[in-house]
């Protein structure tokens, strides 16, 4: 857990409010025990997840990395109460995922931006607030503020199709941040973007995370991305999906893209790669 850069937390009441309730690194936000999920299919049951144990603390940035089909998205969907486990338990903020969802405890960022094409950028960000019954003026102000945070000031009246893929994904990040959930669930949010855009998005995400220090679960395919962003990297293997290695990052809390080329980062990347190799079965 990186130390608290109090000086950097400026002009965001977000942080102040969180500070009242949860700050201590020992606060377990997500607790997953002996979790498993088996899908019943027509020919044979498919074990998507098996014997998963994982604890995530407040303020951690946890990456789930693994090959396609290793169940990392499924695991996150269980935390979000979008899937139900068949074995074991998961708790979010000490309650069941379902109760956490009903309390709107998390913001979910999907692989695609999932913007509503008939709403302009501003009104897309306002959507969660409309559903939560936030008064018009307040939600407009929030949407504007968070669009500014993700660098989209001036694009409020544009419609999704007028934006590039990277900008669309930034809108979806603003939308998830804007109602101030303590927990962000990010499912390969930059997977569909080109390398250059992805780098820039990583940089911006680092800055946003430094400002807000939300707890983040981040699903990715990219070793670089996981190393650069995470305070903890969870390496998973496929069929059945299980956890191979949990790596605590040795990188300094304040990072830039160049941090990826430091010896510590390269060493981390190596360990992740070894873990992925170990989890890969060649049968």
């Amino acid at each position, binding site marked *: 857990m990186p130390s608290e850069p109090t000086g950097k937390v400026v002009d965001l009441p977000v942080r102040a409010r969180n500070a009242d309730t949860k700050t201590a690194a020992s606060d377990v936000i997500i607790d997953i025990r002996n979790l498993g999920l088996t899908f019943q299919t027509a020919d044979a049951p498919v074990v998507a997840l098996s014997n998963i144990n994982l604890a995530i603390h407040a303020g951690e940035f946890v990456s789930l990395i693994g090959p396609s089909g290793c169940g990392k998205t499924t695991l996150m969907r269980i935390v979000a109460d979008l899937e139900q486990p068949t074995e074991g338990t998961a708790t979010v903020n000490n309650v069941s995922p379902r109760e956490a969802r009903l309390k709107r405890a998390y913001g979910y960022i*999907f692989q695609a931006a999932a913007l509503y094409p*008939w709403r302009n950028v501003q009104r897309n960000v306002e959507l969660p607030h409309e559903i939560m019954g936030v008064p018009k003026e307040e939600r407009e102000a929030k949407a504007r503020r968070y669009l500014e945070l993700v660098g989209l000031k001036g694009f409020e009246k544009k419609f999704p*199709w007028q934006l590039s893929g990277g900008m669309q994904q930034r809108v979806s990040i603003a939308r998830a941040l804007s109602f101030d959930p303590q927990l962000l669930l990010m499912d390969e949010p930059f997977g569909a973007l080109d390398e250059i855009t992805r780098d820039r998005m990583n940089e911006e995400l680092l800055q946003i995370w430094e400002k807000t220090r939300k707890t983040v679960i981040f699903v990715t395919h990219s070793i670089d991305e996981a190393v650069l962003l995470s305070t903890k990297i969870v390496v998973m293997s496929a069929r059945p999906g299980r956890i191979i290695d949990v790596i605590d990052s040795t990188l300094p809390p304040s990072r830039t893209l160049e941090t990826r080329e430091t010896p510590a980062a390269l060493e981390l990347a190596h360990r992740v790669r070894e873990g992925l190799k170990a989890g890969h079965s060649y049968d």
Partner: protein
Amino acid sequence: MGAVFGFMSPKGRVLPIVAVVAVIILLWYALAVGLNHQRVSDMLSDSNPDYTFGDLVKAAWTMERPVLPAPDQIAVDLWKSTATLKVTSKRSLVYHAYITASATLVGFAFGALLGVLLAAGIVHVRTLDRSLMPWIIASQTVPILAIAPMIIVVLGNVGVTGLIPKAIISMYLCFFPVAIGMVKGLRSPDPLQMDLMRTYNASQWQVFWKLRVPASIPFLFASLKVAIAISLVGAIVGELPSGALAGLGARMLSGSYYGQTVQIWSALFMAAILGMAMVYVIAGIEWATLRRTGART
């Protein structure tokens, strides 16, 4: 015009359209000669046995009761029965078109509403999906020509005549495409868009109004265009068995009683113009709606 009504802007399509119309008109004139020449030659050989081909063609295009009237005859009759008569006159096609259009629009309004309500029910209630859908489909396999007279007679017996029975037939026809299109449209949001709503703990009502309904709008308009066209057909069919005195259907029927083929054809054209106008009005509303919600126009 192009800027205001983009949905009907020509954008270089004028020439092809004119060319197609010209070809149709030419073929029509040829067909008129082909279909009318038998009767014309009988007539001509009585009065003037030495008639030329030119005489025959001229006579075929100017018959009083032709098998197939020439386009200019229809055009003249259309003009006479619309522009030169008071719109309240019983011989004015505008009057008849108004009678038919009002039944069409009432039937369309209720049919579209019924279609949307059925679709909303089917999308939300599984048992309705199973139980209603077969009936909805079955309702459309019954020929409307068989059902229309029964509706007219049954309602006539209880004293309901005029607009209502015709509107009911229109409604019967046009709820179907709206229901089918809206079921598709209300189910069109992708899983991600639905999951997003779930993460916000949105109620079914909110999912309906903020996701399903806006997503279904393009489907709705496509269905409405089909619906209003068949709604017009329904109203006209409703006028045929009722012995109605007014309406485009009545006009066609009286034309066929008295062999007034030109009158039938001009009523037909009036119906086509009316149908096109109504479809275009819907296209205009669609265009304005979709533009306001950010569609690429």
